[in-house]
């Protein structure tokens, strides 16, 4: 900053404190909303403070950006909750794009007079920013089903990725080492181009079921890219906010990986879901199909019912129908709980948001570790469009592709009802032995209409 301005710095300090307090308030749903209003106030303070920055002389472009940005941002906040994953992926792309553009603009303005430290930070900023932009766009396209959700793989993929990665490192090093070189611009813009390409390559081999990890990772990159911007501009609030975002994404990606018993490398390079399960340990037998009326009687006379939602609930938009059935059962004195696996859905916490939207109080939403001990006392576990997260192979069959992944142990309940669209396999292409167990009944059809029919049948019982 050329002219130190204490007032400006004060607004940044206040903003930083409000961000931290806002995130801290997210530790409980009762305090979360107030905290987020604080964080938004912090952002407003930083925004208003910056408008009085001594270097700013022209407000035309600023006004254009603020108006256009708001008029895109506000509608983007109105999407239905089922579209949360792709919306979030898109906003990761925008966040990273902003950081990346700031980096490019800084280079255009200051050229090679920046010095090594600043250039190093700027290079990282642009690299992380650019690969997050394209990576997030691909993730959003997969989630919105503009693109096939299955992994896209080809021969020599790892080699191609390695080559792109090496190209990025080479350009970066050549550019930082000798900023005065005649080719400096070429190195820089090749770096930008390769980073965009790398983002695409990073996400295309990843299957839809692994999206929670990828989303978290992209979240982290977008944040780190903002933090690097802070290093370039020597601005602490950028470093703090970017680092908080970066670490949040980092922690989430580790949690998601743990919930699948896989490493980050395995998710990124494993191309999970491309391999059709061969090691299913000779699953076979017949699936027992049940009727709506049978299930309704079972549910109506149960003491405890646990609903286990998966991505299928989101695609069928069945959360409201699920809640209505749950309400009817509760009125009859049945204890109703909703069990949420950490990686159910397409982003961390996806199922919680959908059920909260359908008016399920948060005290009825149970985490995997809390609900598993209750399973033996559960009369009916209703699986709604979930597959891998309830696959007992993960626990019992060490050869399974998902061996070791923690699951919601619905097979320990007294009986299980699986709502499923058809008889096919799930996203990962794995057989699920749960479907063949004697306790399990299969109720085929669209999850939403099955739940509506069940609710009607329960009322008649």
């Amino acid at each position, binding site marked *: 900053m050329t002219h130190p301005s204490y007032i400006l710095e004060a607004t940044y300090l206040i903003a930083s404190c409000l961000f931290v307090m806002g995130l801290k308030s997210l530790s409980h749903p009762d305090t979360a909303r107030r905290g*987020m209003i604080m964080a938004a106030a912090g952002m407003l303070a930083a925004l208003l403070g910056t408008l009085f920055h001594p270097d700013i002389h*022209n407000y035309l472009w*600023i006004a254009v950006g603020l108006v256009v940005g708001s008029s895109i941002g506000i509608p983007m906040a109105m999407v239905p909750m089922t579209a949360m994953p792709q919306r979030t992926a898109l906003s990761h792309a925008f966040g990273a794009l902003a950081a990346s553009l700031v980096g490019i603009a800084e280079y255009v303005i200051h050229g090679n007079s920046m010095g090594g430290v600043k250039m*190093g930070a700027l290079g990282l900023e642009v690299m992380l920013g650019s690969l997050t932009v394209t990576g997030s766009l691909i993730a959003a396209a997969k989630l919105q089903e503009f693109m096939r959700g299955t992994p896209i793989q080809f021969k020599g993929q790892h080699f191609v990725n390695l080559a792109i990665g090496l190209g990025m490192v080479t350009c970066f090093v050549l550019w930082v080492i000798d900023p005065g070189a005649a080719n400096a611009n070429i190195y820089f813009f090749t770096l930008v181009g390769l980073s965009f390409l790398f983002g695409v390559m990073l996400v295309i081999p990843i299957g839809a079921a692994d999206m929670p990890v990828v*989303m978290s990772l992209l979240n982290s990159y977008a944040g780190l890219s903002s933090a690097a911007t802070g290093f370039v501009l020597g601005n602490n609030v950028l470093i703090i906010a970017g680092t908080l975002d970066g670490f949040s994404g980092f922690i989430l990606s580790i949690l998601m990986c743990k919930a699948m018993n896989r490493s980050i490398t395995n998710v990124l390079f494993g191309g999970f879901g491309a391999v059709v399960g061969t090691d299913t340990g000779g699953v076979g037998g017949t699936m027992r199909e049940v009727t709506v009326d049978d299930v309704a009687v079972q549910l109506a006379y149960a003491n405890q019912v646990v609903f286990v939602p998966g991505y299928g609930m989101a695609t069928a938009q069945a959360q409201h129908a699920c809640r209505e059935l749950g309400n009817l059962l509760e009125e009859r004195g049945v204890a109703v709980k909703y069990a949420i696996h950490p990686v159910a859905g397409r982003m961390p916490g996806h199922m919680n948001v959908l059920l909260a939207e359908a008016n399920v109080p948060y005290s009825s939403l149970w985490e995997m570790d809390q609900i598993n001990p209750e399973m033996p006392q559960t009369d009916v576990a209703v699986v709604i469009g979930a597959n891998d997260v309830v696959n007992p192979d993960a626990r019992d069959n060490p050869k399974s592709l998902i061996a070791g992944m923690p699951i919601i142990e619905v097979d320990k309940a007294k009986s299980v009802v699986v709502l499923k669209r058809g008889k096919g396999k799930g996203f990962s292409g794995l057989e699920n032995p749960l479907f063949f167990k004697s306790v399990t009944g299969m109720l085929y059809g669209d999850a939403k209409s099955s739940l509506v029919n069940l609710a009607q049948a329960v009322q008649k019982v």
Partner: protein
Amino acid sequence: MIHVLFHPTALMAALVAGGEAAGKTTALDPAVVISSLYVFALAAFLGYQVISRVPPLLHTPLMSATNAISGISLIGSLVIAGSTYEHHQTLASLLGCAAVTSAMINVTGGFLITDRMLKMFRKKETVKAEEKK
């Protein structure tokens, strides 16, 4: 630790050190770089502590909230879009304007949707009271 590869904090530190060693005339004062590193390290620890306490229940709002907060690159964009330069004025202003736009999308959209989500997480008593109405 394979994570280091994907989270180039260590890489960043190494680069800063490398830049110093090369003895180049840096546009950044070394004291600024060092204090920036302190801020970064402390923010990292703080972030780890604060975010570890967020329950899985609120992981989606957490992601959209941190996303909105990282829209703070808005303030960098504002300065670029509003400053005057000797060279490349048009290009810099356009890049700045595009950056302000993208950051603003994140800020407005991110905070609004986070609030919309958090509004939905209600206590049992609140839900019952509402349904009676």
